[in-house]
């Protein structure tokens, strides 16, 4: 028994699609695969992924088909949740897009619901299995199929709220500029069930997926109370100068967490934002290093906005 990729391909290559499916299902049930020596580390799915990368492109396609087929054939009582998780992880690792369909079927058929009520341990298994299935589908975003599945689940009243963070971020990945459509529901759920989500992780992920520029540009579509909650949690980690330099006025204003809700007309001065930032950035371009550069940019922006505010106050008087 050797794990040389050519020899694994050779013996698996002689398998019919049925036999390959059985091999995968049995392997994840028994945690050992005929013809393959399992190492101590990493996980089974990662070891299979490592072997898969050495297969020929033709056999990679066949192997992907085998994984998808196994997911379709998976049965809770025959194969158990551990096997399902293994197959789903493998599907994600080898980028088998076709996995979305059997997983959607499993999610929507509520097969796993029967696990929930039997014991605390079974409840944990249920949660762990479901979060893996959703995470795998989420990993294929922004593929259109993901959006369809996730929107249906996210806005359904019967779906388990514990998985809202995954659904929310998956939807953000599919349509980043539409985050104001998805965020209120997540923030409401988070307020109601704070223990279900690690907010700082979710917001940081949202920041990465949506980007500060898009967050800023679409912020006005959020109700003020949601804007405030988003801004409270945004940029809590040390911001990177790279994420700010060259960004729009909106982005810089957002990171300062001030006055973003006030439209520019409030100042009574029409501002060409693009031009505005260009001029300012040009003025401080001679500064040393990118960190100082971005810091100065922020300070200048803050100062400039303050002078606008002063102007508004004076004119109102």
């Amino acid at each position, binding site marked *: 028994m050797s794990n040389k990729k050519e020899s694994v391909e050779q013996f698996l290559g002689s398998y019919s699609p049925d036999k390959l499916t059985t091999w995968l299902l049995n392997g994840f049930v028994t945690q*050992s695969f005929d013809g393959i*020596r*399992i190492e101590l*580390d990493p996980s089974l799915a990662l070891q299979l992924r490592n072997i898969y990368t050495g297969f020929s492109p033709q056999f990679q396609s066949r192997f992907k088909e085998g994984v998808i087929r196994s997911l379709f054939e998976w049965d809770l009582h025959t194969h158990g949740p551990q096997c399902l998780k293994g197959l789903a992880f493998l599907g*994600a690792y080898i980028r088998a897009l076709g996995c979305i369909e059997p997983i959607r079927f499993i999610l929507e058929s509520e097969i796993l619901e029967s696990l929930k009520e039997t014991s605390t341990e079974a409840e944990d298994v249920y949660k762990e299995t479901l979060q893996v299935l959703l995470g795998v589908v989420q990993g294929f975003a922004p593929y259109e199929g993901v959006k369809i599945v996730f929107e249906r689940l996210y806005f359904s009243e019967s779906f388990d709220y514990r998985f809202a963070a995954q659904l929310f971020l998956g939807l953000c990945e599919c349509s980043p500029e539409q985050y104001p459509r998805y965020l209120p529901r997540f923030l409401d759920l988070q307020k109601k069930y704070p223990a279900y989500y*690690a907010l*700082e992780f979710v917001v940081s*992920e949202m920041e990465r997926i949506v980007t500060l520029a898009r967050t800023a540009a679409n912020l006005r579509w959020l109700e003020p109370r949601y804007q405030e909650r988003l801004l409270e949690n945004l940029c809590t980690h040390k911001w990177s100068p790279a994420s700010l330099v060259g960004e729009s006025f909106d982005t810089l204003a957002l990171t300062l967490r001030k006055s973003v809700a006030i439209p520019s007309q409030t100042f009574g001065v029409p501002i060409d934002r693009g031009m505005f930032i260009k001029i300012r950035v040009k003025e401080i371009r001679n500064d040393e290093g990118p960190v100082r550069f971005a810091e100065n940019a922020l300070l200048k922006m803050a100062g400039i906005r303050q002078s606008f505010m002063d102007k508004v106050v004076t004119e109102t008087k």
Partner: protein
Amino acid sequence: MRVSAPGRATLSNMLYDALENRIPKAIMKEFVKDMSARWNKAAKFKLPEDEFDQLVRTTAGGLKYSCKGESLMPCPIPCSRVMTAPSFAEYHLDWSKVGFAITGHLRKSQINLLETNGLHGIVIGKIRGTRPFAWVTPTENMQNTRASLHPADSARNHCGLIHYSRDENLVELVYPADIFMKESLYAPTFLDGYQLVYQSKRSRHRWGLAVELATLADGYPEAVHPPLSITGEFVLKDLGRLKPLSHSFDFVRFVGNMEWKWNWRTKGKFYKYVK
């Protein structure tokens, strides 16, 4: 098994563990008995290495033949475990809490978040490998590794982790300082390390000693523990990306350097021991 260099290494390690009393005699006797029975029944085309693997991996869910070395507890030495970032994520991340997508790798920004925000409330499961135990090394040694120019490569080299050969991100899981004052910790034996680049060797404090992949010298001390639950008290540290291994491991030289070598004379000694 003596036909191949890795097989000879396993036999030599078995010899060392037996003759240096690193494993209870009763366990060794039982193992030899079980292995002989299994081998007598095995199909002709089967390799002894595979029968060995199946016996150790499957008997009593893998529990019968793991963590059978000398007990090291209570152990006040802070410990760390080196693993790949995807493996950490698959085994321990509560995906529903952090909302990360599953893709087979963690982004640098995600690892940084785990490093800076900590693991409180977002980790689940028990620490183990595909068999029911996990390897650790003293955190003190890992501090040197973290200070090196390429921490991931240094960790792989000093801990003898030859099976980490892909271009992947390694992480260090730092255990709570006093965890092994209460939890079990054992010196590794050939039964734990037979699949890896492993030498049975006693170090200071009775720990095992890894093999440095580059020089074949002694690497960092190592020990094994049965599955234990991960909690928010654990800390994750990024070790950066691995470079592909630049050389293949010289198993023949490695076996040649071993303290006890499996040959007709020592074989006799071993059988006398297990009789």
